[in-house]
């Protein structure tokens, strides 16, 4: 794991405001996403984050940085 499980959770949580605000911002440039498209985009983003986070980093296993 590239980041700790808790950090991963927080990063995934962050996709929510990004997605919600992105939809508003895109509408300014006349790109209107439907709810379904937004959800699909969100799932895709979360999957990408998961792949990035869980992809083995040179065989090194996770160093969860809890206190």
């Amino acid at each position, binding site marked *: 794991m590239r980041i*700790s499980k808790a950090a991963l959770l*927080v990063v995934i949580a962050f996709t*929510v405001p990004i997605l919600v605000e992105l*939809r508003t911002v895109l509408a300014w440039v006349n790109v*209107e996403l439907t709810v379904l498209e937004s959800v699909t985009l969100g799932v895709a983003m979360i999957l990408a984050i998961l792949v990035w986070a869980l992809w083995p980093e040179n065989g090194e296993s996770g160093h969860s940085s809890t206190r």
Partner: protein
Amino acid sequence: MSNAYIDEFPAEARIVRAAFYSSFLALALGGVFGIIQTLHRTDFLRFMDSVDYYTVLTAHGVFLVISFTIFFLVGIFTWAITTSLDRGLEDIRFSWGWYSLMAVGITLTGVAILAGFTDATDISASVLFTFYAPLQAHPMFYLGLVLFVVGTWLAGADWFRSWLAWKAENPDERIPLPTFMVLTTMLMWYIATLGVAVAILAFLLPWSLGWIDTVNPLLTRTLFWFFGHPVVYFWLMPAYMMWYVMLPKISGGKLFSDPLARVVFVLFLVLSVPTGIHHQYLDPGIAEGFKFIAMTNTMFLLLPSLLTAFTVVASMEHGARQRGGEGYLGWLKALPWRDPVFTGMALAGLMFAAAGFSGMINAGMNINYLVHNTFWVVGHFHLTVGTAVALTFMAVTYWFLPQVTGRALWNRSVALGQVVLWFIGMTFMSNAMHRGGLLGIPRRTAEPQYEGFEFEAAVGSVAELDAQIALGGVLLTLSLVLFFANVIGTALNGKSDSLPANGYAETLSGPEDAPLVLDNLKLWTAIAVVLVIFAYTFPLLSIIERGGLFGPEVIPFPLTLESVTTVGIALETAATETVDGATLALVGVIR
């Protein structure tokens, strides 16, 4: 034997615990009313009459922003004073005295509000948190608020007493930072509450008791906002205190700068009160010039918040680097995200930044036309008091609760999930509220669905916004359930011997770097008072000169259970007045 707060100060820990539990009870009630009104307003679930919505809304507001926040902050202020001065309270009976007064006060107010649901009494107070006259509540509502506020005054006196006693023994020492923060906050609070004290004691309470016949609606409203804006700093400053004295410690580092923390609190003391008129930008009867002054003061209040943003992030970075973090942004990975206390506060701080932006729009005098009293404002304060303050309080609860109970936290993972869930829920809810406000959807209404027109969404639809709000509300409610599971679970836990020691963050740049003048509380109070006199004397005099001290004759609007009939009568009276005289047969066609 551990060195937790309860071990050092067992008697004080009981007070803090009592304050916390009172605060959590209010949070639970406020949360229940919150979800009820969310589902009602968005028309997903309406099981009550829309008339009762306003009783629910009053309860939601008063329980959350008065009892939840203030009970919690008297708890952490008591902790801050005793811990940083390293001495117990002077007389614990006096402390229980103010706690009891607050508890009795809020119970009276709460009962007055909740009685609005039943026909068994004619007691009711569905006047919302702002209780603008001529809306009239039962006297018990006002009386309860008075007792509650007097309780906080006495609490402040208790803390000042501790400080004076400490100062007598340590004449040459700087005021410890947490104590400094408590004292400046309380000085601000004393000044701020004068407004609401006058509004209630001189006008609203006698009026609700029938001793005086009329009030000046603009005057009581202005006096309310004299208090109503600084009260938000009364909620916020404890959260700031946590960001200054706890967050660096939890991040594994030290506070970046003690002197700047003092500067920030001094700025809040000086600037919090002379800004209240910015809630009245659209009030007739107040000259534009006064509004401009309030606007300028408000804008300068951004300064302490921007300074806080810097110091907090710098302290977090310092902590992360102590923990081995590297790189421009890579240090973020080294932060203790597993710790709900840290993650909750960090997310709260982040949302506060977003709230700052919507706040700047609100503060922009003429931009305010667009958003005043719309749903936008609700979105704004759910980010400030509803997240920056509430989420910080919930997060630090996970540190404080073991300290004051001597029991380990029930479940850290549930706690982490809880703070993250709050963040997600509030994102959905406040985004939709802000956007709805821009469409002109009003705040404080049971049914924002009208007959004659529809709100037009620029993007998506109003139905989508409603769904987003309801989703957010449900997630927030779930988050609260997890929070209470942890509070109850912790209370039922066995005593623990391995709790972390009581304490707060050390500083990189300590008080020795702060000019002595910063600790001159008399000076800052005097400046604050002068600014208040500048900002308020002329508006108040002008309002009294225009409308009279007791105002014009108004029809009192008691919101008792007969309110519906009262409204009926008022309507009828008004209607007859209108068609009075020669206009009896007026057809009145406008083509």
